[in-house]
């Protein structure tokens, strides 16, 4: 196992064209699980291909165990990859697929057999070894693809959207299995996905990417509760964070924002400290679970009319309109009011986030900046 560090990695497909990757900077420790997540076209797969050596980088360095590998050919990097399409060799049996990399590296026959046996047992594909990939189901092919990567015991594993070709149920099963396997093997892993649930559940570290730039790099918890900007806040979380346009009033140290529905209004105090917010267009970010039914004696209460309810089973989503914007609240099903009813909402002002409407960057909280808050795991983000 190994550490992986990317230093100012750049990638461009020729002058004049926009950069595909811009100053990618991140570092993961031995055995950590890194998730690269972002919408399609954000450069996450390109970045993975660069780590694998399938594409050359235009600048910067890729370090494995502190040694620069960016000039090495893919076969010398000791990296294994699982592809979205699995890319199993169709004319070879499952056993030959798993053996292929070992045979080319001239590993002794006895050791190859031992490795195939170990991997097959680990992935429970012993009974499939004599079959061809065409005779396997999607889930089985996925296992074989993982087996091929595991057999070589490389320094780093790369996964390129490995679960996206599976049906929904199998995807959830395999997700749990991948997590289990990583806990057992403790392999340094880079995992590309566009699925924010995979990103949250699997990763030790998550890098959210957009337009070839890392928007934020941190633990899943940091990404969720302290998103660096509007993009990260909207991309992570389902249902997504509510964004309510607000104009702060008051003054230094006692800022508050007016929230209004057609039934009432509320002046929500902000924990924005003595930042100068006068006349600035801001966006208030609230997760659906940060809006709750008001209890007796709550001070910050806003009345609203229920417009739509969406019972999902464990929760019921309620939609109301605040400041002209649809806002979603996640409530327990037995507490949820019916459509047309009036409800009283209370706000957790301490958890509410503020974003600059123009730049999309999050405003620092009163007491601490995101960098200090994340205790050493530097949240890397840049303006867009």
């Amino acid at each position: 196992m190994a550490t992986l560090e990317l230093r100012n990695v750049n990638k461009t497909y020729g002058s004049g064209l926009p950069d595909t990757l811009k100053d990618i900077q991140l570092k993961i420790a031995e055995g950590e699980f890194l998730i690269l997540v972002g919408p399609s076209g954000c450069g996450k797969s390109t970045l993975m291909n660069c780590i694998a050596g399938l594409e050359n980088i235009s600048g910067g360095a890729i370090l494995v165990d502190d040694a620069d590998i960016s000039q090495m050919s893919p076969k010398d990097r000791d990296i294994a990859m699982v592809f979205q399409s699995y890319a199993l060799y169709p004319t070879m049996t499952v056993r030959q697929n798993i053996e292929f990399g070992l045979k080319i590296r001239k590993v002794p026959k006895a050791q190859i057999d031992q490795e195939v046996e170990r991997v097959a047992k680990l992935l429970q594909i012993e009974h499939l070894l004599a079959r061809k990939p065409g005779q396997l189901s999607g889930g089985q092919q996925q296992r074989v693809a993982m087996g091929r990567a595991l057999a070589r015991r490389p320094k780093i594993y790369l996964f390129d959207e490995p679960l996206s070709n599976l049906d929904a149920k199998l995807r959830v099963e395999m997700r749990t299995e991948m997590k289990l396997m990583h806990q057992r093997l403790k392999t340094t892993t880079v995992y590309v996905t566009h699925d924010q649930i995979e990103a949250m559940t699997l990763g030790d570290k998550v890098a959210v990417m957009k337009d070839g730039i890392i928007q934020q790099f941190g633990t899943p918890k940091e990404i969720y509760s302290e998103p660096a900007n509007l993009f990260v806040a909207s991309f992570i979380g389902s249902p997504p964070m509510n964004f309510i346009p607000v104009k702060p009033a008051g003054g230094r140290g006692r800022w508050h924002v007016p929230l209004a529905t057609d039934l009432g209004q509320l002046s929500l105090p902000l924990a924005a400290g003595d930042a100068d917010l006068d006349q600035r267009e801001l966006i208030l970010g609230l997760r659906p679970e940060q809006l709750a039914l008001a209890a007796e004696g709550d001070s910050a209460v806003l009345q609203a009319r229920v417009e739509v309810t969406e019972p999902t089973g464990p929760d019921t989503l309620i939609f109301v309109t605040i400041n002209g914007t649809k806002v979603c609240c996640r409530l327990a099903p037995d507490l949820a009011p019916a459509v047309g009813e009036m409800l009283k909402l209370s706000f957790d002002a301490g958890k509410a986030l503020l974003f600059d409407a123009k730049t999309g960057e999050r405003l620092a909280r009163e007491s601490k900046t995101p960098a200090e808050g994340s205790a050493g795991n530097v949240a890397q983000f840049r303006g867009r």
Partner: protein
Amino acid sequence: MTSAVLKPGLTPSRVLIYAVLILACLMYLVPLVVMLLTSFKTPEDINSGNLLTLPHVFSTLGWVKAWATVRGYFWNSVAITVPAVLISTAVGALNGYVLSMWRFRGSQLFFGLLLFGCFLPFQAVLLPASFTLGKMGLANTTAGLVVVHVVYGLAFTTLFFRNFYVSVPEALVKAARLDGAGFFTIFGRVLLPMSVPTIMVCVIWQFTQIWNDFLFGVVFASGDAQPITVALNNLVNTTTGVKEYNVDMAAAMIAGLPTLLVYVLAGKYFLRGLTAGAVKG
């Protein structure tokens, strides 16, 4: 749908369709039947009866004589066709591999120019080819004919393989590269085993083209180095002596049998290979 196919019923329209089909079939088969019948007749038999009567005496004399005449040229054709087919298929496969999986700057243009070869008429290349062969010291040799056929066939074989490999997911090559395989290992161990239908298409196509070629044979070979198509023409067009139609027909059959054999042995791959690129994602 299926039930309609399972219960055809001999409706009048169906009878008409079959009648037309059988008629068309017969029309195509008549020349072959005439050739076969004539080749087994004696010359007297041929002069007395009409084309479609069965031979009075079943004689293999025509075949024996024809084989004795064209045997040398038959092996010439084999010596030209077999290496030319193998070399052009092998190089075409390699070309297709590079043009689809290892694209370089200008590779699309290169491929486009190569495709021109498919549309060049034979006549247009006769003089330049003859000049080149002369400079290479290969004029009037079997090796020279092999070179000409390989060069001319490359446009087609490259097209076949390139179009097949374009349909193969690039991830396969990437996976093999990460597994440590080099340029030729990927080609030989991963891609070639998948290419059997395309190889068959190439072999059939090239074999038919080269074996049946007359123009290159008559221009670039002379005397004992001529292929069987040229020899057959010389045999049939002789003006001296009595016309031995049984020998002519037998010789023509001998000249045509190898291509027929190739179709029978590898024909099932032909259609599969031609459609392979279309259906496989």
